[in-house]
């Protein structure tokens, strides 16, 4: 079967391909985030983008997948053990050059694919924050000192509903967002049939399984090298108008729109970048467009929006000549991409499902509409670990003899061998002669292996009275050197319907007791408190330096929660009336979710006369030990 490049492409069915093509021809478009792509489309899209970035199919640029659990050494480079084993020549660098994020050696670019941005481990997230949209990369590790000009292109995938797990700092590095929900190559059936028919043939004669529709590949490769394009004054005005409607921090979003508009103009072989190109780029990214086009404010007919190409027409054939007016189309005046249908709820419980739906309704920048839960998205390394392979984490503080190659300290091993070289018959210019007795492994600083997370009801009936009841847990934290997180529920009059989280720098009893003496509020957003606990625990468990750690969760509550989670997540001065009954359902749903997180959980029940069963219900949902306590003053 032959594939006609331009016949079948339906541009508005495939804006993602158009977006990738526009980005591929602009050197500044270094990071692209594809939203809501189906899992099966991921590698298809990555493969398409890789071909778009490559000059020839025979010399495709290298592609690496960034694993979620990649360690710093895997990302940036680690010492090569084969040097000690004598399996390489002496000219090979001691630091392995094939790290995931090392610059490409024999290609102008390298494509880094992130299958799920929300599931990246902390080292990879921090690396992406450093490298995406930066003109230079730096590595200073294990004797390797390297700086290189920007040569990585990033293609990341994420679901809109998961945006709350991603640092806004990192998301800001990906201002080019392409909605990819429901993306499917319109010729997929034919390609698959042809591929199966040719499956018995030698590899080189097999039909391609992935084809770039619409002639974009040829167009991209023809137009990459072009003269400087300038923006028409009106184009810059439109760009800023649209950017204002999609405003974020800094200038990255408007630069992204400018970059894509430039790519769009290049692909259409325009002499300048016009307002039509800018609008087109915004449409491709599903940005909100002008509610009132500039053309209606001024007098020029040429200012009008380009039409949205209809199904079956190629965007390449639908271009607007530079400076010429486009066909007016009212449908383009307020175009926001329809809400994604694909955002899956992460947790059970109606409240969390509603929350996910709210996220999904935002088009290109869902993070703008959510209240950031700081711990879940922090890029700071957390201090946690588990017992297994404890010695691999922590910073290096020395070395000690070893009999295995595990976590080997190369330098101390060599230094241990040096004094004995003459005895062993070493000759100048040859490799050192090592004996097993020379082997040294790193001695590393211990990382705390325990964490205490406390959810503390501080509303008016209970606040400040938990000190004695908390004492055993404070002692546990002290004995295990466990960092402490305290989540105050009902403690802040300024935001009474939200819980508040504090990471205590000191685990001393006074510091924790100080948290218990905060001003007391009237509402009890217990559901939000548990939500923050869940976020914090997931954050702790995300650091790949430790697959998990022993976390003790203590929920000090009389079981009452009277603020539904949705109300806490959308703080406003005067929220609409809500049912407190749904707040309790939220509490139980979140407690059930927390139960699956391998915790040691306790519920401290103050034995309130009016709320006899509630703490037991929470404890049962949480799978926690229920402890009856006497509060101070009872």
């Amino acid at each position: 079967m032959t594939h006609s490049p331009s016949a079948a492409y339906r541009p508005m069915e495939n804006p993602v391909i158009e977006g990738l093509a526009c980005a591929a021809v602009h050197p500044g478009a270094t990071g692209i985030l594809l939203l809501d792509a189906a899992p099966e489309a991921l590698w298809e899209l990555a493969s398409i983008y890789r071909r778009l970035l490559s000059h020839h199919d025979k010399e495709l640029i290298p592609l690496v997948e960034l694993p979620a659990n990649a360690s710093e050494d895997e990302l940036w480079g680690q010492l090569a053990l084969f040097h000690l084993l004598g399996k390489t020549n002496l000219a090979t660098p001691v630091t392995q050059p094939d790290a995931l994020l090392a610059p490409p050696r024999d290609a102008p670019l390298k494509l880094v694919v992130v299958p799920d941005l929300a599931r990246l481990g902390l080292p990879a997230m921090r690396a992406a924050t450093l490298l995406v949209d930066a003109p230079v990369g730096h590595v200073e590790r294990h004797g390797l000192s390297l700086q290189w000009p920007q040569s990585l292109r990033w293609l990341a995938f994420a679901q809109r509903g998961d945006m709350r797990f991603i640092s806004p700092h990192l998301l800001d590095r990906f201002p080019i967002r392409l909605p990819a929900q429901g993306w499917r190559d319109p010729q997929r059936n034919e390609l698959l049939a042809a591929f199966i028919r040719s499956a018995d043939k030698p590899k080189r004669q097999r039909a391609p399984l992935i084809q770039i529709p619409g002639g974009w590949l040829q167009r991209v490769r023809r137009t990459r090298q072009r003269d400087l394009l300038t923006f028409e004054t009106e184009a810059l005005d439109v760009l800023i108008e649209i950017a204002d409607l999609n405003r974020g921090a800094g200038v990255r979003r408007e630069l992204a729109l400018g970059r894509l508009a430039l790519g769009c103009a290049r692909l259409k072989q325009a002499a300048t970048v016009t307002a039509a190109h800018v609008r087109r780029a915004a449409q491709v990214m599903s940005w909100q467009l002008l509610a009132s086009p500039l053309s209606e404010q001024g007098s020029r007919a040429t200012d009008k929006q380009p039409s949205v190409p209809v199904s079956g027409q190629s965007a390449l054939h639908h271009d607007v000549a530079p400076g010429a007016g486009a066909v007016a189309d009212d449908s383009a005046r307020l175009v926001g991409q329809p809400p994604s249908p694909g955002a899956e709820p992460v947790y059970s419980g109606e409240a969390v499902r509603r929350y996910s739906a709210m996220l999904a309704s935002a088009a290109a920048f869902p993070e703008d509409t959510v209240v950031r839960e700081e711990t879940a998205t922090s890029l700071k390394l957390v201090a946690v670990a588990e017992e297994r392979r404890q010695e691999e984490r922590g910073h290096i503080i020395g070395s000690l003899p070893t009999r295995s190659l595990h976590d080997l300290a190369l330098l101390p091993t060599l230094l241990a061998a040096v004094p004995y070289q003459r005895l062993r018959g070493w000759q100048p210019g040859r490799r050192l002669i090592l004996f097993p007795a020379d082997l040294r492994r790193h001695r590393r600083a211990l990382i705390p292996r325990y964490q205490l997370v406390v959810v503390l009801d501080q509303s008016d009936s209970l606040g400040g009275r938990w000190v004695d009841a908390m004492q055993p847990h404070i002692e546990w934290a002290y004995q295990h050197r466990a960092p402490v997180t305290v989540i105050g529920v009902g403690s802040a009059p300024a935001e009474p319907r939200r819980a508040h989280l504090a990471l205590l720098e000191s685990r001393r009893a006074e510091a924790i007791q100080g948290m218990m003496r905060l001003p007391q509020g009237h509402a009890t957003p217990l559901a939000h408190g548990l939500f923050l606990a869940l976020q914090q625990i997931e954050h702790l468990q995300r650091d790949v330096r430790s697959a998990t750690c022993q976390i003790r969760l203590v929920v000090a509550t009389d079981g009452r929660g009277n603020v539904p989670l949705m109300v806490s997540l959308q703080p406003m001065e005067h929220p609409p009336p809500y049912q407190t009954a749904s707040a309790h359902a939220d509490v139980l749903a979140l407690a059930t979710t927390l139960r699956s997180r391998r915790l040691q959980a306790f519920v401290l029940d103050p034995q309130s006369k009016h709320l006899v069963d509630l703490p037991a219900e929470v404890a049962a949902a949480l799978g926690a030990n229920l402890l009856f306590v006497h509060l101070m003053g009872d």
Partner: protein
Amino acid sequence: MEKQQIRVLPYTSVIGQEQVKLALEIAYIAPRIGGVLISGERGTGKSTVVRTFAKMMQDELPVTLPINATEDRVVGGWQLEKLLIGQRFWQEGLLQQAHGGFLYIDEVNLLDDHLVNMLLDVASTGVLVIQRDGNDEQREVRFTLVGTMNPEEGDLRPQLLDRFGMEVEVRRADAMAATPEIGRQLRRMILDKVLQYEQNPDGLIAAEKKAVEKERERVVAAGQLVQKIELPATLCDLCIRLAQRYEAQGHRGDYVLALAARGAAALRVARTQLNGDSAALTVTPEDIRSVTALALQHRRPIDPDTRVRKAWDTKVLDEELKLHDS
């Protein structure tokens, strides 16, 4: 060691960010101040300004301590390739490489604690003590610390914050504009310049070469003047009073303010002289006004009720300057 020639946007093409430029220039000509922390929201060009300033002054990017660094690269270590064949070669660490220049840390608030500890030891004493891998030596190491950070990721440890002589809180260029229309004009200029640069970096670098050279000459001239700038006793008193009024913590507030004011005066005088005019080699109250926030705002105390740093109030500065004038 592998350093490739890397192009960055020319210094003269950076639109706005006057406070960041002022702070960097002062830190460069008066290294005793102790460096600059540039803190601000994402996408405001913090790193770009630092890199392009270093490129202008040193013709190369600043020595950069990335948050992925290992200890041996920070303090130095034996080069493994040499050791493998029985040779000894000590590879300098970044702290030594930065001696006499900038040490730049991007995302400084994400730096791991053990690296911060090393940095603090050296920044506070000016001496790098190497006691590792059989090597025992001490080296004098003086560098100007420049850090950029996004405060959304959390604060700096107070000890490290104190090592930065000045702090700039960066906002979008248009947010600082006098009117919305000026703000839009600034945004247009930024877009135009950056997109132009990305399409043809060599073209813009060549076009700006003379302007960049002129700026470099101005900063170099200021560096030669700064030691000659006098600080009148009344203005010295003003620095002390301002540090008191703003409740600056520690003893470095008034001292840094006075040094920064001298730096600002040197830059002003150099600009005047390069324009063919003359100016007195003396700090003026306006010089102090231009650097007071840089020197003192990060030294303000934490409000015990709100647990955030006390807000900056320009009225205090206006009052003190008025008092001084009278």
